[in-house]
């Protein structure tokens, strides 16, 4: 087995790493020319969410609502009800922190609002906990009819953005401050379709471990899997779990048929209710015999450089590798 090739070729090294907020800002400004119903609302963070690119091109369709997110969400719902396609952007924590406005004026009213929360997780670094979206997936996933998506790279971000314009219904997209490496896409598998996760490795039915990673931690999870495969002399599967709602039940069912006895979820988000939450719910209702290791955050975040935070929370390739190794050893010694 030439494991290095499998894992390293999961990346598209011809492309530069890019923050998903920037991919969003660029693509949104392009879509603005295509569809005049697109309007954008921001809450004094347009330079950070990168809606400033759209604002520069389409001033009459950009609304800076000031630091007033509750009203921003309601106004977006009204714009949607008037036939526009509003993108409402802010940091994910501030946006989903106005949960009742999203619950009532967006979800319960069936308003066609596209919510975009940037600055996901402890990966934002020095600003500390107050600016970190850590519970946003959990909050958005609980709402009926809400589509929830967390892109792993530029391709994911742009694809979902185009899809969300065509889709009639509320969505939440979770984006990063930090750069993300581009993933390789096979030409014939490039179709982007609803609720379909992407298997980044070759799919060996003998794999003892499968890793479901989302957002910023897909890249480090690939690196961790490479180390694990060398240590265990076995192939480790890695999945880009970008769709949070709906999610890829088909792929989960396929893995449930296989021999992997350790499943792992990896997310820069609380371990309660996010990707790990949805997989554990699925496993319990399905009666899946594998064990699930949930890698994520379980306490408040804090200041630190992105690198220091990443190490402290165990989100480096080494950190992920160690957590999975330990869990796998414990499982085998039972």
């Amino acid at each position, binding site marked *: 087995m030439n494991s290095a090739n499998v894992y390293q070729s999961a990346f598209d090294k011809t492309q530069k790493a890019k923050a998903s907020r920037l991919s969003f800002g660029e693509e949104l400004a392009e879509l603005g020319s295509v569809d*005049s119903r697109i*309007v954008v609302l921001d809450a004094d963070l347009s330079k950070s969410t990168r809606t400033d690119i759209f604002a520069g091109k389409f001033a*009459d*369709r950009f*609304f800076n*609502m*000031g630091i*007033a997110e*509750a*009203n*921003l*969400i*309601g*106004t*977006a*719902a*009204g*714009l*949607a*009800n*008037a*036939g*526009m396609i*509003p993108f409402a952007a802010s940091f994910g924590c501030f946006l989903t922190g106005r949960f*009742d*406005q999203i*619950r*009532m*004026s967006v979800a*319960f*009213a*069936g*308003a066609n609002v596209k919510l975009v929360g940037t600055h996901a997780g402890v990966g934002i670094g020095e600003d500390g906990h107050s600016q970190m979206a850590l519970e946003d997936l959990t909050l958005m996933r609980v709402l009926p009819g809400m589509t929830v998506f967390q892109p792993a790279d530029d391709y994911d971000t742009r694809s979902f953005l185009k899809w969300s314009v065509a889709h009639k219904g509320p969505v939440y997209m979770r984006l990063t401050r930090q750069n993300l490496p581009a993933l390789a896409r096979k030409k014939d598998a490039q179709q982007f379709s609803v609720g379909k996760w992407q298997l980044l490795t070759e799919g060996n039915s003998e794999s003892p471990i499968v890793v479901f990673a989302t957002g910023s931690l897909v890249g480090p999870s690939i690196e961790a899997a490479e180390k694990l495969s060398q240590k265990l002399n076995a192939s480790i599967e890695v999945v880009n779990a970008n769709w949070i709602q709906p999610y890829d039940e088909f792929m989960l069912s396929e893995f449930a048929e296989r021999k992997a006895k350790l499943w792992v979820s990896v997310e820069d988000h609380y371990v309660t209710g996010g990707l790990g939450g949805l997989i554990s719910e699925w496993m319990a209702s399905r009666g899946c015999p594998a064990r699930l290791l949930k890698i994520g955050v379980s306490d408040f975040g804090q200041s630190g450089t992105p690198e220091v935070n990443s190490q402290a929370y165990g989100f480096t390739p080494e950190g992920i590798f160690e957590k999975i190794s330990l869990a796998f050893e414990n499982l085998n010694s039972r």
Partner: protein
Amino acid sequence: MFMNFQWPRVDSITQPDSLKAIRQTILEQIFLAKSGHPGGSLSLVEILASIFDKNFEHTVTNPERPDRDRFILSKGHGVPALYSILSSLGFFAPEELRNLRKFGHFLQGHPDKRRFSLMETSTGSLGQGASVGLGLALGLRLAFSKGQISRLPRVYVVLGDGEMQEGQVWECLMAAGKFKPGNLIFILDRNRGQIDGSVEEIMSLDPLEDKLKAFNLNVSTLDGHDVSALTRFFASLEVKSESRPTFVVANTLKGKGISFMEHPTAWHGVAPKKIELERALWELFGGLPKEIPEGEPIPDCISPFGRLTLKGEV
């Protein structure tokens, strides 16, 4: 109840017979549902009638036409009044009013846009309808400026005065003063009551008009039960794409029209008992509407309102 009910055949829902019938059906809806908010529904009657009578562009046979005027009841608990008005305009049969708060029905306890598109948004969590109204006004103004619709629709938002305690309302008013959608009209049902007491004692809004003016709104104070003054006011509004949004402080009485319900708190969220409903109807119509022979029990269906349905009347 409602079996033979017809809306009075009048050419304006602001006429006394019609206003009485609206009050009657509000009370009967809540009586049949055994729960609801009579006080804050009765205070809305003249406000809603004066808007929907001649100052609300709509087509009953095409209720979702894109250039229609919009109405949002941000104080969603007053929705029996809105249901009565919409029924009186012919949007749905009065028989449906029997189904207020029934499982699966479009006449939910608070406005539910997913079940009833004319609600324009779902309300009931106070403060939110204001922002949705702002977004509608901005979106319709944009659509009008791009020629996607041929007239600039009005957007009416009715707020409660307890609701004005929500921070989101003030966020919204601040933004309304900035973006200046001239087609946006707020009406405050200033009935001075909320669940736990008077607005004055729970969290006073005063000096309300000064605050509103400071938010760059075009503020007027009116008698919220003077239906002709309200009608004239809404008719006189000039709707421009860009001008200060209108804010009407409509002074009202909670429970208006039924003497024993005119109280800031007592009838906020209490359904009338049968005897109370009868007394209320007696006050409205000067007698029980249909004679019930002595010895016969009063049926649950209290009022076919002969007075309103007798041929030749009205």
